[in-house]
């Protein structure tokens, strides 16, 4: 069996009074890709943001339960959320590069966190891992906003990789991209999972089936089914899951 790196235990997340995620319990295995699927509004993004304490920037949100990272509850009193986010990175749905140079986008995170080592090497390493190096190596100093949407998203991935996180959370990272860029990023995931743990939210069933090792299916904030992707897509235990993955609703 896989070693677990993160674990949600009885996690309930509310905006005001209304719960968006109810009593979710699931284990994220290390060095695997875990997909979270489910109809719109079922709480996928909400749960994902709980994994690196990004919900704290939404004043109305509150959380019950525990989220463990390597055995420690990341919501414990003594835990610094900044440290949590440094080790658990996030890539967002819409590419959101900083309006700065390509180089600065990648080097900023490590710089403010006082990372040592050659920044040049780190830059090249991160861009290569994100399969972007060849396209941008001659214009590292130009603005990141001049890149295409797909390139911008890979830059955002490179930026996250430069922090050398242990887990990367991705919220529909391909939904704003064309098929070629999407294929690019999907290939990337196969490479990345050798070193990182990835949790990806996606609306695209084929994508979930292609890239993930485990799949969690949510509906109305409730975890309906969770298991190996192969099993969830071919022999789902719950009828609802089958209906969803075969596209009968959602």
């Amino acid at each position: 069996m896989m070693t677990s790196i993160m674990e949600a235990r009885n996690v309930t997340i509310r905006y005001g009074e209304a719960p968006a995620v109810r009593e979710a319990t699931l284990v994220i295995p290390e060095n695997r890709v875990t997909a979270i699927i489910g109809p719109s509004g079922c709480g996928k993004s909400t749960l994902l943001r709980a994994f690196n304490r990004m919900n704290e920037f939404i004043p109305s949100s509150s959380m019950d339960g525990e989220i463990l990272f390597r055995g420690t509850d990341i919501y414990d009193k003594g835990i610094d959320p900044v440290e949590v986010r440094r080790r658990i990175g996030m890539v967002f749905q819409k590419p959101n590069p900083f309006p700065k140079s390509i180089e600065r986008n990648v080097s900023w995170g490590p710089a403010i966190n006082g990372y040592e080592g050659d920044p040049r090497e780190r830059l090249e390493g991160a861009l290569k891992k994100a399969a972007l190096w060849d396209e941008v190596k001659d214009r590292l100093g130009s603005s990141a906003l001049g890149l295409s949407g797909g390139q911008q998203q890979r830059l955002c991935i490179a930026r996250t990789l430069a922090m050398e996180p242990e887990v990367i959370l991705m919220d529909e990272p391909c939904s704003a991209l064309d098929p070629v860029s999407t294929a690019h990023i999907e290939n990337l995931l196969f490479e990345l999972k050798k070193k990182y743990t990835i949790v990806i939210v996606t609306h695209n069933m084929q994508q979930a089936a292609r890239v993930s090792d485990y799949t969690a299916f949510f509906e109305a904030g409730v975890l309906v089914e969770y298991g190996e992707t192969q099993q969830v897509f071919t022999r789902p235990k719950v009828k609802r899951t089958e209906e969803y993955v075969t596209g009968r609703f959602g």
Partner: protein
Amino acid sequence: MTGLGRHHSANNLPARRRALAVFRFACAAMTWAAVLILVALLVHVARQGMSWLDWQFLSSFPSRFPDQAGIKSALFGTLWMISTTAIIAVPLGVGAAIYLEEYARRGALSTFIQINIANLAGVPSIVYGMLGLVIFVRFFLLGRSVLAGALTMSLLILPVIIIAAREAIRAVPGSLRQASYALGSTRWQTVRHHVLPSALPGIMTGVILALSRAIGETAPLVMIGALTYVAFVPEGPLDAFTTLPIQVFNWTSRPQKDFHALGAAGILVLLIVLLVMNTGAILIRHRAERRGG
């Protein structure tokens, strides 16, 4: 989509075009009316004061004799006052805006403060003059100094700067902040490296407006007792001073025609100072916009 819909829109299209033309004409007319009035004023002032505007005028102190009188002390007084005001009000105002937008909890208190700041922006300037007189001149014993004047002016323009800076900070997209936080940055690092640079153009606009207001204000300074006859240049923030609008007011209230012309020349100097100052600020803004993207 249907034939009916297309028919309908095609039918009222000429009417819509006419309405558009009328509206466009009305807007253009108003713009040009404002511009023309401004030009007329400028031409009038320039014709009156241009011939007096020379080096002698710029480098002399005020005098009883119009042809010996100059604007030196008022010009330096204004420069002293406005730069001291900027040094005090800009960091305070931007700091307050950062606090209110990025740090303070949203709640009753925050709303209360917000409403008060908006109200303060509408308080007549003479009231600030009275406040300055009581607090800075009398209580803190600053006397009729540049510092007392600058502090009073700072009070006057702080609400404007805070409001403009808050708007600018609020307009920075949340996705930028999230990107920054997700890389393990602290609140301050996010503000310092991403929020402020993106908000800078908007903040600069507010600063330009606020300082332009401060440079032309007379009432609060008269209130705290800035002098009308000053035959020296302030050498420090605790020296007495006068400013361009006060000097202009002084000259125009005299009966002699020549002094009125001197007043017009003083207005021209004030306009030039304003222009130079705003050009500087706009240059900074442009650079920020280019970098900030």
